[in-house]
């Protein structure tokens, strides 16, 4: 069976190499791919969408419907992870859980209790807890605000720079992951709860689909940001520009919260309790 597979792979490879000989030369300005549709994008995207970055205008305007579903793919991935991995609150993974008495600093070991009733006086610590490295936590504390501002910058300047919603969401999520790495998972959850993550992930895709839907209610087609322009009495091109910014914001929200959600679920074996 293995030999047959190997032969099949080899034959398919030879066929692929043979078919590529029929391709136009790399970067050939006369090839169909650079003559047909792309010309309109390059020549007219600025006047039609008021967006200097052609990539952004193609991504979020001309082919915004694809991007909408790509965002929904990210959302689906987060929901699928939750559906498969999330354990119920009562289910504990480890044999022992450690709690520190806040007033005295004493640590107690609780067999098979992942949520103590005395949360007020005790705080949970990771079972493999070691003292924080001061260099790591200080550097992260300095770095994270800049990362988050940079994320907003990437989002807001998606029109001008090679950036946009996906990148902004990833940078924002990375800042939270850095927080989790330099402190612990509960430290992040206290600032960005599971409920908030779900709401933001759903809000992001709703903003995207909703922007398209608002255009629909003004009589324009779905995702036609011209409808937005009519609604706000602004020039057509500004409406497109605003529409792109709106949907990119939705993308950023969904990508950011979905990434953090997946990270939390995978790193804590589905308990969202401890682990990294």
């Amino acid at each position, binding site marked *: 069976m293995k030999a047959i597979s190997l032969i099949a792979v080899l034959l398919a490879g030879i*066929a*692929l190499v*043979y*078919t*590529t*000989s*029929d*391709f*136009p030369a790399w970067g050939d300005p006369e*090839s*169909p*791919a*650079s*003559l*047909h*549709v*792309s010309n*309109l*994008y390059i020549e007219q995207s600025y006047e039609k969408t008021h967006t200097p970055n052609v990539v952004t205008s193609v991504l979020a*305007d*001309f*082919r*915004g*419907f*694809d991007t909408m*579903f*790509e965002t*929904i*793919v990210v*959302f*689906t*991935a987060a*929901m*699928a992870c*939750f*559906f*498969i991995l*999330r354990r*119920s609150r009562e289910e504990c993974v480890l044999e022992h859980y450690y709690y520190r008495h806040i007033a005295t600093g004493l640590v107690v070991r609780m067999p098979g209790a992942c949520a103590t009733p005395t949360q007020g006086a005790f705080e949970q610590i990771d079972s493999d807890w070691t003292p924080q490295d001061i260099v790591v936590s200080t550097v992260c504390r300095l770095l994270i605000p800049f990362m988050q501002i940079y994320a907003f910058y990437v989002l807001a300047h998606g029109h001008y720079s090679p950036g946009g919603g996906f990148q902004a969401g990833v940078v924002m999520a990375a800042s939270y992951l850095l927080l989790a790495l330099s402190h612990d998972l509960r430290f992040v959850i206290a600032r960005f709860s599971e*409920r908030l993550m*779900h*709401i933001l*992930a*759903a809000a992001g*895709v*709703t903003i995207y*689909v909703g922007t398209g*839907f608002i255009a*629909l209610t003004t009589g*324009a*087609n*779905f*995702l*036609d*940001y*011209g409808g937005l322009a009519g609604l706000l009495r602004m020039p057509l091109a500004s409406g497109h520009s605003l529409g792109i910014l709106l949907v990119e914001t939705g993308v950023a929200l969904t990508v950011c919260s979905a990434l953090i959600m997946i990270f939390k679920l995978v790193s804590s074996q589905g308990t969202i309790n401890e682990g990294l």
Partner: protein
Amino acid sequence: MHYQILVLLPLLFAAFFAAISPWLGRRLEFPAAVLALGVSLWSAIQVLLQTLAHGPVTYLLGGWSPPWGIAFVADTFSAAMLCLMSGMALLNLLANREQIEREFPEKTHVFYTLYLLTTAGHLGILSTGDIFNLYVLIEVAALSGYALLSWGGARAQLASLNYLLIGSTGASFYLFGIGYLYVKTGSLNMADVASILSTMGGTPALAGAFAIIMLGLWVKMALFPFHGWLPGAYSQSTNVSAALLAPMTTKVMAYVVVRMLITVFPTDFVASMPELSTIAVWLASAAIVVGALAALAQRDLRRMLCFILVAEVGYMAGGAFIGNRTAMTGTMLHIIADALMTLTLFMAVSNIVSKRGSPAFGDLKGLFRSMPFTMAAFVLGAMSMIGVPPLCGFFSKWYLVSGSMQAGQYVFAGALILSSLINVILFFRIFEICFFEGGQEHGSHEHGHHEESVMDEVHWTRLVPLAAAALILIAVGLSTGYIVDRVIAAALTGSIA
């Protein structure tokens, strides 16, 4: 009007709503999902009425005309498929509310989210007129499908992982082929690609593109020998997910194959590569025989249906590649018929499992007595699968057989008839177990049998959707003439001689 996009939008909004519904205080997921599927079905019916009255309709997303933007195009066939798929998702959801709440404690909201998203993805595949957009929608449909199928029996996660690996490979092949097409034509819109290809003539790169796209789609539709993922994925998962995805995924992918053959690639292009068509018809014949024989070896009702499904995929693929109008009509009719038959049978099995605990043959004894209504629907589905007139399975097989005879593909016709005969054996064996074994002999040594002879039918909320599915089988069978004349012939205009 905006009906084409309104097929998708309610599903998306309801899915996003369901994801956060536990935190809104009250659990409105189920009504929201039913309402969304209802609006979706209603919009799909409007699209169908429009296409029947005025021919194909196009909807420009973002208002950009193709090839610059993305367009939704509906002809009579895709509109009919839209009605069928949204209706099936609605029936299956209505039937399974109580089971969903039992099987996914604390996770019902995400189940509804994934259910609606996978339905939206499949409906989008049927709607779109853009080959890249189709790939994106395959991703949405497949990703949520993998998650839905990963719940269930002990081996469900492994089977779903297997499906994920194979399915992703298939989708990547499709994307790879789209890349080939884009390099050669510079366009992604189906109609635009078709018009460019018709002036281009066959070249090695296009032949490569066609072969890769077909390979990818064959993997996704589980054509033998790429069917390995199907029996595990659908027989290990929970009944709700299996009854949604078994009628949906393979049929929608078969629809994409048909769409590629009749819309994207010029007809003489396929005829110019007889080798590939021959390979496809041989694979299809092999799929039919292998599926039917493997089904004979099963001792579990659900696994048996899964292997019958593998054979059914062979019918659809073979008919599509035979290359004449009759066979293509048969394929399109069979996509509709098989979706309905699979839905009926899987929903009936779901009812049986909910009462008997397992679909193993040993647990089916005395079913005709204890669950007469479920079994009546099951018999209708089975008869349709065998091909008994006036049920819809008969007419599609008739077109397929006459099409293959016209084309001289006697092997395919033979395989088709052989598998129908094997289906007779398969289903009559089930009927025998359900009717004669157990229940009758009151003095049986095995205890528990006299209880089974008492009627023990599922709740009416499960029976009514099942009955609706079974009656649609008859209705579609009786209106075959209308469907062929108005729906399928209109979609095939000018594409195949």
